[in-house]
């Protein structure tokens, strides 16, 4: 820790020659100016965070430095020398490695096979498997993870965090001088994040420059020496982490302070009758689930990864239904065996994984919006471009209601930003007149501003008398949004906490402490 502090104070930007520098980079995509005259310097031995909202141009800049995109104008200097990359391979060979947001490993192959793909030690085309595994072992040892990961392990058998470590090992194996990471911690738990941070620390102490993109500002402040802020494709400022506060950086990112991060909670008179009641419900993962959900209420569901949060949502929505127990909707017992029944009973499910479960990425916005309503109300009907027979102008109305930013509803959903995609998912359930909304990680991978508007929308739903169940692994979100908090632990609801409970109370309960202990801790 002291070393880290020392490193931060000694390595001021002027003390060293930049290892990598971009000057006046401009990149235009059809209809968008992704980067506009951006210049940044990156120093060896430093962790350099690049932050900005979605669409600020961070990923584009990373891809240009890694040779995946060619800039329209501007230059890249590597150790003072001008370089051009026409293929990622050229950047790799010059010592710039990138780890993309999506995993870039072959799940069916071993760790060693993945690391040395394309560079297998061989003689006459025949691979020296022993040598390859040995090289991988040395590499894993070098980054200090050889005790977790065997070179011969198949990647799909590793955890997300371990896979990430393999990616880092692979990136380092190209004798990287610069390591670029695009949201490396998005899918990691907090202990895994710590592991990654330690590793980054070790790498920079060897003189490597680490550049990383993250939406988690807390993390940025934890490990970055320097922060560069981009906004709308333009360079805003590079600052030393020690000189600024989170609020300063947020201000630089959005151009205004986000004083209104969460909408106000509901007040008791907003809450109506019980809409959803679950009694003694269980399946192979969930045990003895009991809770109620009232009109106008946001109930947050907190818990660690694997505590059964997502499984609860899936059970309610009939994806993996409850085996025993009762579900009552507006006082009437209902049977939910599959999602179709759930939808007909007025449930809506905004899933965790937008890309694979929430959207048809290659379909236009309008069809994504109408997907559910067409499925339940328009089975034999002729498809109306803008809506259904009963509501012919549904698409434009929904678009207005959720404020999707697009020039046309014919645009394929895959081209929208994460926040706008989430709005499209939400509008689908608005179209189907859902009464009970289940959100699973509603703002994962979404930038600050879109987050706030999603939160506003969730609160708007409750003002219209809908009931919301919101699963989130971000505790500030749970606390900021929930009128009540249910904490899950090992497939059960460990307890209920009132609005405005502290992170400490939630974490205690989520790690298996008794409600009594938690109450005691809350009083301290």
């Amino acid at each position: 820790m002291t070393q880290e502090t020392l490193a931060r104070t000694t390595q001021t930007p002027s003390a060293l020659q930049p290892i990598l520098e971009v000057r006046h980079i401009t990149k235009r995509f059809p209809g968008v100016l992704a980067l506009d005259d951006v210049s940044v310097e990156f120093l060896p031995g430093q962790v350099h965070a690049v932050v900005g909202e979605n669409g600020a141009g961070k990923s584009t800049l990373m891809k240009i430095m890694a040779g995946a995109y060619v800039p329209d104008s501007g230059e890249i200097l590597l150790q003072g020398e001008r370089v051009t990359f026409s293929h990622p391979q050229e950047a790799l060979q010059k010592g710039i490695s990138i780890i993309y947001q999506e995993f870039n490993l072959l799940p069916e192959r071993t760790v060693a096979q993945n690391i040395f793909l394309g560079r297998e030690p061989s003689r006459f085309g025949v691979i020296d498997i022993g040598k390859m595994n040995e090289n991988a072992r040395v590499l894993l040892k070098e980054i200090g993870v050889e005790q977790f990961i065997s070179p011969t392990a198949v990647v799909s058998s590793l955890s997300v965090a371990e896979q990430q470590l393999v990616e880092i090992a692979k990136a380092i194996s190209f004798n990287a001088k610069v390591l670029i990471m695009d949201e490396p911690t998005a899918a990691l738990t907090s202990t895994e994040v710590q592991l990654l941070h330690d590793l980054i620390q070790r790498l920079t102490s060897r003189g490597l420059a680490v550049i990383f993109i993250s939406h988690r500002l807390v993390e940025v402040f934890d490990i970055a020496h320097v922060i560069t802020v981009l906004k709308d494709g333009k360079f805003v400022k590079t600052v030393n982490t020690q000189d600024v506060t989170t609020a300063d950086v947020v201000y630089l990112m959005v151009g205004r302070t986000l004083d209104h991060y969460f909408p106000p909670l509901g007040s008791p008179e907003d809450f109506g009758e019980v809409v959803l009641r679950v009694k003694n419900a269980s399946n192979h993962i969930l045990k003895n689930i009991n809770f109620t959900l009232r009109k106008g209420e946001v109930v947050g569901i907190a818990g660690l990864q694997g505590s059964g949060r997502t499984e609860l949502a899936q059970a309610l929505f009939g994806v993996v239904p409850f085996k025993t127990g009762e579900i009552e909707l507006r006082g009437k017992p209902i049977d939910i065996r599959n999602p179709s029944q759930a939808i007909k009973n007025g449930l809506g499910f905004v899933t965790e994984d937008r890309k694979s479960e929430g959207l048809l990425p290659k379909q236009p916005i309008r069809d994504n919006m109408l997907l559910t309503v067409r499925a339940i109300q328009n089975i034999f009907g002729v498809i109306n471009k803008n809506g259904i027979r009963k509501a012919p102008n549904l698409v434009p109305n929904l678009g207005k209601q959720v404020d999707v930013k697009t020039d046309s509803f014919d645009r394929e959903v895959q081209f929208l930003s994460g926040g706008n995609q989430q709005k499209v998912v939400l509008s689908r359930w608005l179209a189907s007149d859902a009464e009970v909304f289940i959100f699973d990680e509603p703002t994962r991978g979404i930038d600050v501003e879109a987050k706030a508007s999603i939160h506003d929308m969730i609160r708007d739903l409750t003002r219209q008398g809908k009931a919301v169940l919101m699963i989130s692994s971000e505790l500030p979100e749970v606390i900021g949004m929930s009128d009540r908090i249910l904490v899950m632990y090992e497939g059960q609801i460990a307890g209920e906490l009132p609005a405005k409970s502290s992170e400490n109370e939630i974490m205690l309960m989520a790690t298996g402490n008794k409600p009594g202990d938690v109450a005691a801790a809350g009083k301290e």
Partner: protein
Amino acid sequence: MATITVSQNKWKQALGRLRIPPVYIFLVITFAVGGLLDQIFADGQIFTNPSIFMNMIVRSVALGIVAVGQTLVIIGASIDLSVAYTISITAVMSSFIMQGDPNNVPQAILIVFAIGAVIGLVNGLLITKLNVNAFIATLGTSLILKGIINGTFSNYTGSIPRSFEAFGYNQIGPIPISILVLLLVVFAGWFLLNRTKFGSHLYGVGGNNEVARLSGLRTDRVLIMAHIICSLTAVLTGLFIVSRLRSGAPWVGPDGIYDLESIATTVVGGTALSGGKGGVWGTLAGVLIFGVLDTVFNQLGVNPYLKTVLRGGIIVLAVASYTYRSKREAA
């Protein structure tokens, strides 16, 4: 609950270390059940007569050789529908060139392999350079080949010399040469896939083309190579068939349904149609299952139409059992 999972994993690990594809369980079951039915309802020769047993494998040679090639392209997330007509053109051209003269054998073999290499190259180029979907590209070349050979040859053409029949009929000791050739081809396929850079790259290209590209692989070359090898295995199958029939005819490929059956056996053998996963030993088991079924149906005198229905059902069941199992693993 937890202990059960652990012990299951141990079993899985043990099986994984032995690297025996699970399809061999199906093969053993098919053989045992088939042999038993034969004992009960027919003369029971499957268990008792070694020559019937050998014949069962010889039946599998033609399909087995080309299925190895098909496995390679499918691991590369591609597919080859042109193998049936590549087999036909090989059978016809080789017997046409040989004309019963042993002196013509070397050039005949050389020419048909060259033709095969060109077909594979064209398939590969269409798929990688023109970005034509593999299904359509190879269907296209298949139709072109079909037109050419049906327009040029109408029936059995030429003949092969006695000496060339050795491939189809002779034995070394108790084992037919053709079975040795099949094993050699399977072994070569295994070696290519598991011990060479080409194989490693092919798994990469099939598993995730973008990952392979970003790792610096010339993905196009890898896939073109796989298609060439696949076509060459089709040529070898064609040569085997002509050595059995003693003369080549244009319908030998499509009549044997080598295109669809090579795909089916590959998939039954556990290779993923989406690419990046699988291997030739599994395919061999898939092919042998088909061979066992054929023999059993023959022994039992099953109606040929019913035979086809049963084969279809068994393919679907086998593949469904994989997805069912992998779903359970996921849950």
